[in-house]
């Protein structure tokens, strides 16, 4: 595996009319899958947009795939090796799934018709949309449309793949299938996966970055983050008032996440979600930060 950094961000700052979306963010990513977690308004989407070169930072240095995207040539070169699935995506009326992905393929400079069609079929099969490729996108379900979006991001097996909420609306079986696709791609590409689904991050990512109010709270391995919650998650028959978060599970017991499991309580193995909750520390609504 190539260990050269694909992404190097230094001192990245972005503000929207007085609201700070990102503040002095430093990040270095190598090939592999990195999960990006954070509450609403933390700056995840802003960070992804900067990585996708569709948004320029107000300050700091961006280096992607060995190039700095300041000139038109460098931008084009980076974008040839980049795939991006934005959080929200509209589709033009009348386009089939195949036609839309093909359109993006043309934009990605796949000028030879035969190889372009072959590549479009390949990515649509990867996301299990081969059978409905000729159906209009507007006639597809929300999850299927999301997969069309993912297909266009996978065109050309990009070296840098940026996915903002890729599994929204996708059924569990398809999510597992997509995990297989992404884990294979992650062997050679740098993938940044922004999601609220902590189980996807736990299942796929070797590394996780937690953003809050435009700053990085945690940058390390998933195992290390989960480790911070060891001994701080316990089960009980009732909600524990000492817990930071407590909820009734399907078994009828209460899962409590807190500072420290009380003596005599029944500790349980923490999940990434527990660690994430503890990291954010029950801070309530974050204010003044754009997504």
């Amino acid at each position: 595996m190539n260990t050269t950094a694909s992404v190097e961000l230094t001192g990245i700052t972005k503000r929207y009319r007085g609201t700070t979306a990102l503040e002095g963010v430093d990040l270095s990513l190598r090939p592999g899958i990195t999960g990006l977690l954070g509450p609403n308004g933390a700056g995840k989407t802003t960070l992804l947009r900067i990585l996708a070169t569709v948004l320029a930072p107000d300050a700091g240095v961006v280096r992607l795939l060995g190039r700095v995207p300041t000139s038109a040539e460098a931008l084009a070169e980076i974008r040839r090796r980049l795939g991006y699935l934005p959080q929200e995506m509209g589709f033009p009326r009348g386009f089939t799934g195949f036609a839309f992905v093909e359109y993006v393929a043309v934009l990605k400079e796949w000028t030879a018709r035969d190889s372009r069609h072959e590549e479009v079929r390949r990515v649509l099969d990867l996301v299990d949309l081969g059978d409905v490729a000729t159906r209009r996108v507007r006639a597809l379900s929300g999850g299927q449309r999301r997969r069309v979006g993912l297909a266009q991001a996978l065109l050309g097996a990009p070296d840098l793949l940026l996915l903002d909420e890729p599994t929204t609306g996708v059924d569990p079986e398809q999510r597992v299938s997509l995990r297989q696709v992404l884990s294979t791609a992650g062997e050679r590409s740098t993938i940044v996966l922004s999601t609220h689904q902590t189980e996807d991050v736990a299942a796929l990512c070797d590394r996780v970055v937690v953003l809050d109010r435009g700053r990085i709270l945690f940058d390390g391995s998933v195992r290390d983050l989960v480790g911070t919650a060891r001994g701080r998650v316990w089960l009980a028959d009732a909600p524990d008032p000492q817990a930071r978060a407590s909820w009734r599970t399907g078994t009828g017991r209460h899962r409590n996440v807190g500072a420290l499991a009380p003596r005599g309580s029944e500790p349980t193995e923490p999940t990434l979600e527990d660690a994430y909750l503890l990291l954010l520390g029950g801070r309530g609504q974050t204010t003044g930060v754009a997504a």
Partner: protein
Amino acid sequence: MSAGLLERPAAPAQTLALRSLAALEARRYARSPLFLIGVSLLVWTTTVATGDLAKNAATADPGDLDLLPAFCLGLLGVFVGHQLTRSLDGADEALGATPSDRVRRTAALCLACLVPGVVALVWVGWMSAALAMWRIPLSASISSGARAAMLLSGAVCAVGGPLFGVLVARWTRFPGSALVAVVVLAGWTLLSTVSLAQPPSRSGTFLHLSAPFTAWVSMDSPRSAAWVAGGSPGWYLAYLVLLCGLAASAALFPGSTGPRRTRVLRVLGSLAVVAVVCLVLAVLPDPARIPL
């Protein structure tokens, strides 16, 4: 790479990439329902008009036939160009992360606007052949060169309309901007004909020929004889072509940065100057009206 992955193509020449994109946009244009309706309307109105001509062959001059492609393909084409441009707004963020930036995508859309132009040229060829075939007596007041320029201006309008639609879609965000553009365009054209109701003068000719489309043949009242307005159809045709260039350049302006933006501004400035010169040359000839 895992098995089954294709080799990513080497970065192609920019022209090749633009050509592929333009071909794709041209196919989208050709499949647009409003364009197809425009073509059907052109065929139908041409059939009716030439039928009338054939019936009244001894007495009628074809007059302003260029109105037909100008409306059917040009004015309706404003909607088509606008709709094609706006249709991808929802995916703008994903498309913005591709090597084909907004300027290239706009250039491809502008090239696709040649589709109605090709249809209009076919129409010009057909009309010329039909006029000769039916031996329609053409008034000697209009030279063959002037008549050719008049017919061709309809074909240029068939390109200019969609280009204007692309321009409006790139510069405006509000819903209904296509209809506003069409109303403004139609209003400007109609306003230019006000001078035809006034005594001939160079200022009247200037007002008449400054519009993006104009009628050359008119009459003082329904019962009086028709006449040809003053001015040069040839230079007016050149003016229209330059208006098309201005529309395309202005459409490319949003999204262009750095040296490219400077180039676009220079082209815009040059085209504007030459357009004004052509308009002046179109107005210079004798403004007197010539009876048909």
